[in-house]
């Protein structure tokens, strides 16, 4: 028995970062908004408090904050010719669940993409020629420019209070910042975080090689901050329990600490938790959404009518929602037709370990999630790729985020996997090793995509998402090139042994890499190659907006959250100034 509820103006599916910002803006503009969150309500007090939160086994190893994969898994295969099987335990990437979404367990690394990233296809063609990349690489322009997004990046960073040092203000290069960044309108809201010893060593070595080190932009704050919404944050104390954890200090910018207090106080907004949305309902024309159907925590089914539906879930869940709802043509890799699930991309992560002797004491456990020191000299298109045979790059940084020992106990290659030799190596190297993170871009490739699995079902009986992905040759070449550069920095630091581990294939779900899954509902200017238009409005069903990293046509050299925040405010602007005044298509197909 389905209960039909009273119609509202807006339904938001997923109350994480995107959902809470959109809901806050539209509720404040006078619209009745319902937020449907599948997980539980949770707050800094009492849920995130220490010392219970400082539990590596529970949160790191066992993924306590993550999507319940026993009820809602994904399946995976490297190639379309293989049988996809369930990811039975999370490891490679970690979608969150519950109020605040994945942002609750993020590290706070808050970047902007560069102007060239948004016009990657055009830029690559112009700089390197039409045939530089093979036919399998399906990169494309975003349909928005950096200049379109700049005010929205700015607004997002000021919402979070991001700590950093500008490198380029209105075209003027700023000492101490990243000289490669595209122009920003003003300085970061708060100054950079304190520099960890590993970052100081990296800074010196990178400078000696002629590179341009700068402090990582961090939404773990360097000082107390009150954001434009009037919400107060504290300074981070470098507890070393950041990624995969929630912050007990109100020092990490997450929905709970930047916007939920304002949203939840607005009577125009209603939060419903424990609600698993099954589909977006369409009318008989399939061109108009009528609302959503969801099942609550006790198993009751509801139909929530709404004039406007916004899907604001983690990237892969946005894709599945459209497929389950029949919105947009599913991508067919054999024919190269269809759009939903197309251009699924990831991030190409490599590492470099620099092993020192006992004289260098690193203290890896003193850490915030984002207080590294980096260079962008080998990121994006900041270096000439002529003759290299690939596009893209990676930031290289000493990003020391933790010393939690179940997962962090670096040993040099050749160390036995167990026994006395292993134990001695762990003791010898634990406090005397510096790890670099090489955060690499990811091109879209014809063979990589998502669709609905033909076999496996979730706990509600719906098909789960099937991910078909392997690293494109372009990205493996990039990883090898940039890793060699990073090894040189490790040597310049004076390490006794420097070990580069460029990413190699095949992609595996058994090893954590990053939770930066992108694409599948990509934005663009052509409905044949995009799911949503430049305002993140569905081409097929104009009263559905899809907002997530699933909008990225391919992934760049930086963590995706800053750009997602900018896109969120960009879409909100279009909703408030255009769509809600005159509902309908914002771009003619």
């Amino acid at each position, binding site marked *: 028995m389905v209960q039909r509820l009273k119609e509202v103006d807006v339904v938001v599916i997923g109350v994480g970062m995107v959902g809470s910002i959109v809901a806050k803006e539209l509720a404040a503009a006078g619209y009745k908004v319902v937020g449907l969150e599948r997980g539980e309500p949770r707050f800094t007090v009492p849920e995130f408090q220490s010392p219970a939160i400082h539990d590596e086994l529970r949160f790191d190893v066992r993924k306590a904050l993550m999507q319940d994969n*026993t009820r809602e898994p994904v399946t995976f295969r490297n190639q379309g010719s293989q049988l996809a099987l369930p990811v039975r335990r999370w490891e490679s990437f970690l979608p969150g669940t519950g109020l605040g979404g994945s942002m609750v367990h993020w590290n706070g690394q808050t970047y902007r993409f560069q102007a060239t990233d948004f016009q990657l296809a055009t830029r690559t063609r112009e700089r390197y020629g039409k045939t530089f990349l093979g036919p399998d690489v399906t990169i494309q322009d975003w349909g928005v420019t950096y200049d379109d997004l700049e005010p929205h990046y700015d607004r997002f960073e000021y919402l979070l209070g991001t700590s950093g040092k500008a490198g380029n203000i209105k075209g003027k290069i700023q000492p101490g910042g990243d000289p490669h960044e595209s122009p920003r309108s003003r300085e970061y809201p708060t100054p950079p975080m304190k520099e960890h010893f590993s970052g100081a060593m990296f800074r010196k070595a990178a400078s000696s090689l002629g590179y341009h080190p700068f402090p990582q932009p961090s939404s773990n704050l360097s000082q107390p901050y009150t954001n434009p919404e009037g919400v107060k944050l504290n300074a981070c104390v470098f507890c070393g329990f950041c990624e995969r954890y929630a912050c007990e200090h109100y020092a990490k910018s997450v929905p709970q600490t930047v916007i939920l207090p304002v949203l939840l106080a607005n009577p125009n907004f209603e939060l419903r938790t424990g609600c698993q949305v099954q589909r977006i309902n369409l009318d008989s024309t399939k061109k108009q959404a009528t609302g959503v159907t969801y099942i609550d925590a006790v198993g009751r089914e509801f139909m929530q009518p709404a004039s406007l539906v916004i899907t604001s879930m983690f990237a892969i869940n946005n894709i599945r929602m459209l497929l389950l709802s029949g919105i947009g043509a599913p991508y067919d890799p054999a024919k190269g037709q269809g759009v939903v699930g197309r251009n699924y991309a990831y991030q190409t992560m490599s590492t470099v370990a620099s092993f020192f002797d006992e004289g260098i004491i690193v203290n890896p*456990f003193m850490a915030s999630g984002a207080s590294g020191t980096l260079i962008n000299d080998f990121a994006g298109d900041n270096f000439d790729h002529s003759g290299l045979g690939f596009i893209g790059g990676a930031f290289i940084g000493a990003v020391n985020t933790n010393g939690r020992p179940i997962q962090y106990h670096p040993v040099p290659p050749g160390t036995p996997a167990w026994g006395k030799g292993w134990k001695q190596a762990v003791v010898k190297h634990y406090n005397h090793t510096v790890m670099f993170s090489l955060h690499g871009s990811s091109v879209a490739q014809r063979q990589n995509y998502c669709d609905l699995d033909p076999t496996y079902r979730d706990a509600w009986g719906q098909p789960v998402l099937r991910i078909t992905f392997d690293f494109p040759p372009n990205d493996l070449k990039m990883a090898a090139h940039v890793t060699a550069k990073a090894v040189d920095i490790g040597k310049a630091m004076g390490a006794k042994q420097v070990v580069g581990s460029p990413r190699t294939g095949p992609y595996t779900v058994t090893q954590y890499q990053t939770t930066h899954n992108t694409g599948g509902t990509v934005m663009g200017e052509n409905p044949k190659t995009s799911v949503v238009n430049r305002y993140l409005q569905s081409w097929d069903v104009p009263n559905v907006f899809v907002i997530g990293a699933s909008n990225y046509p391919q992934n760049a050299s930086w963590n995706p959250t800053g750009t997602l925040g900018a896109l969120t405010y960009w879409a909100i602007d279009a909703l408030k100034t255009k769509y809600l005044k005159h509902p309908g298509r914002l771009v003619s197909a």
Partner: protein
Amino acid sequence: MTNLTRRSFVTGVGAASVAPTAALLTPAQARAEPASDTSVPKPTYIFFNADEALFIEAACERLIPADESGPGALGAWVPNYLDKQLGGAWGAGERLYRSGPWAAGTPSQGYQLPFTPAELFHASLRAIIRDLKSQRASFHEMSGDAQDAYLKSLESGAHDLDGVPSAEFFDMLLKMTVEGFFSDPVYGGNRDMVAWRMIGFPGAYADYYEAIDLHGVKFVREPMSLAEDGKGHVHMRQDIPANL
């Protein structure tokens, strides 16, 4: 030992005649353990039967042996950690997607067996103990080198352990041994935070706002457990859920 019931084994742990750890103390471990250690109570097993416990204790100690840097897995009570985890929600398949159909898959697709961790351990240990008995051998009585050779044969995947590829069992045993060694002592391993002391990890203590400025200076502090009371006693809890 074979005529010992599980109950009598459990209640008898600690008595000299059945103490399964007694024979396993290497000279190095004897040096590393303080003399008062003989008075420390031994774990009470709820998941492992007597033969299984003998194997697990001996195997864990080979994976992380006592040496001059400090106690190994046995001294850190890692077998107790394994016992409580396998006997609890984790052993029953917490956070493991368990629906079929089942297929072997590629290495990049990860774990694809129908077994819960508890089922996997029981099946594997049953096969191992049967195999050793057929050779009239007993793992805990072998020399260290022979134990290592046997563990390596499991690691290489050569045995079928009642349906479990031995490499799969070895991988889970090693992972859980490292977990038990380095996790918070609330879970029953890392007794007295020995593993944290060994590497200098301060544990759940977590405020370095001032200390982070002291580049290259060793941070010296007693580690802290998340379950430590005002007197420094760690209260073990076996049932912390793997969710918030």
